[in-house]
């Protein structure tokens, strides 16, 4: 099953490699991993999308907690949560396609952030599922480049992961 795990860790050199090293050494899946400092510059917030049996997820949770630099871990998918991902797509946009591409972008509540005489660069945020849908909705042969950040997640309401 797919799980989205959120963690707070010391914002120190090498901390990221401890997490990624743990996943590769123990053979756990990483679908995506995002990391950036928080409002407290000494802490980084990481979101890992992974999948595995309940036993594997339990081990992932425990093994992450065991890393010395990890401050707190939460399996967001155990409760109500939100997740968002950012995608940038560069498409070939000439002639009639330009109008169609603009229309699709609007439908998906994206925006065009760069325009040249042959291309558009479209910015889209949402769940991974929504981003997939967009890619399916447009003519695939027009896609020149796709960049996705991977999911960032946060608990709903009072579910807070803090020091």
């Amino acid at each position, binding site marked *: 099953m797919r799980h989205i795990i959120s963690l707070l*860790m*010391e914002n120190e*050199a*090498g901390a990221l*490699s*401890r997490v990624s*090293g743990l996943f590769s*050494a123990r053979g756990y899946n990483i679908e995506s991993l995002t990391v950036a400092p928080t409002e407290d510059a000494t802490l980084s917030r990481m979101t890992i999308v992974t999948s595995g049996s309940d*036993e594997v997820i*339990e*081990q992932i949770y*425990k*093994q992450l*907690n*065991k890393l*010395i*630099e*990890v*401050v707190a871990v939460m399996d967001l998918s155990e409760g109500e949560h939100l997740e968002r991902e950012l995608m940038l797509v560069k498409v070939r946009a000439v002639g009639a396609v330009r109008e169609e591409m603009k229309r699709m972008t609007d439908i998906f509540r994206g925006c065009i952030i760069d325009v040249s005489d042959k291309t558009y660069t479209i910015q889209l945020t949402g769940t991974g599922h929504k981003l997939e849908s967009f890619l399916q909705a447009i003519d695939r042969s027009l896609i020149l480049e796709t960049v996705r950040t991977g999911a960032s997640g946060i608990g709903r309401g009072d579910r807070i992961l803090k*020091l």
Partner: protein
Amino acid sequence: MELTGAEITIRCLQEEGTEYVFGYPGGAVLHIYDALFAQNQVKHILVRHEQAAVHAADGYARSTDKVGVALVTSGPGVTNAVTGIATAYMDSIPMVIISGQVPTYAIGEDAFQEVDTVGITRPCVKHNFLVKDVKEIASTIKKAFYLAKSGRPGPVLVDIPKDISNQKTEFSYPSSVNIRSYHPAQHSDLEQVKCAVQLLLAAKRPMIYAGGGVILADASKQLTELVRLLGFPCTNTLMGLGGYPATDKQFVGMLGMHGTYEANMGMQYCDVLLAVGARFDDRVVGNVKHFNQEKRKIIHIDIDPSSISKRVKVDLPIVGDVAHVLDDLLAELHGSKEKPDQQAIAPWWAQIKEWRGKNSLVYKNSDEIIKPQFVIEKLYEVTQGDAFITSDVGQHQMWAAQYYKFDKPRRWINSGGLGTMGFGLPAAMGVQLAHPDAHVACVTGEGSIQMCIQELSTCKQFQLPLKIIMLNNRYLGMVRQWQQFFHGNRYAESYMDALPDFVKLAEAYGHVGMRIEKPSDVEPALKEAFGRKQQLVFMDFITDQTENVFPMVQGGKGLSEVILAEDL
């Protein structure tokens, strides 16, 4: 007064009460060696290879309750040390490794003797640090010792670039450590303890299975009290030997791949299992599916939450320091109105007695040729069961574990998790330094000993009167045994040819060498060797080439699917 980073490093070791540093100098640690030279509180033991430095620090730590310390240079110094670090990591041994690094300004430039030490060692340390500011050396070393010893222990590495060890700053050693992201479990959940007591008292076929965690937590006193109070059978893992007295009638021997019949059958068919500081690893429970076919309630005490339900699903986990949890369990038992009912478990003991009757450790002795088991039995008698025994890895390790009856903790020193050949001799050096008046014997084979044999030179320099008990069967015995059982007797590269004359070799290093070829000579030779209190004696026992280790649970098989010697 300002001190250099190197001086601070040594001051930190002094503050930690470090007696011995095991190490090898090199370019990146020259300042640190200079600072070592200028004092005499911390003594340095010069090994002949960095792997041995770490193993020696490891042996020192295992045989005491202290943190072992090793010091190595950058590049090859560190890569040589990695085997030792991984060995300590697998067995959760508290250790601090200080490594030199190329100067900060040269890091990343493929400088001479540069490796990414923090990167290379990351998967085999509890934690590691690269110190980039001289002001952080003291606090980092303080943290390193704290991390190494607290919670589930393990090796911690501190990498110090050469320029940092030469810069100056004020020295003050922190009196306490606070790591906001690290809070190892201490006390147990008393509700869980109460539930455990109820389960234990209701058991009809109980079993207590204790591992290395009991040794590491110095909890053998509590374990022994608990086992006796309950009247239950107790087994130890390879790492847990000595945690419960092996000569006690409630001890059913070691369990696992080469465990006794009664221990493995008891483990398989019990209805309540109390696991204490053990981790259900593959050499202990064999095939998990097969193990799970029998229904039983499992109580698991461990300090590391990630050890719980990792391979075997546990019904009642108790996370905490093993000694504290056992104290709580004992208090709860003493306070309980219900008492252990010996009548209720009498049929179970009768069953165990029947299993014991198989006499699974019996072997066919000989007047013609030395049986390796016989050597260990005689070693036990001659040392009156009171020696520190280190071992290498292979058949001799299993025989030592099976036939030397360890009644005390920290007497059996072996590489259980990683299975590192070459461990025995350097580990014995650390043990002997920690216990200068004790008998220390290294049980080894002609394969293993050659992996760190250079340390005979260290033993000479520091006058370490070890006794090396080499069971020489001219084979990599355990490899040969597996080849015989599982690879159609095709002994691919497991024959040890062109062996040196070990007697002459020992003599060349300045020690005493003995070759023993007849069973009748075994005991007198051992007596003579242990009589030489000031000398290292290297004993080359020429043993039966075809002897195998029994009982044996093959890899992938279940605990009750055991092969006994009589089956073949």
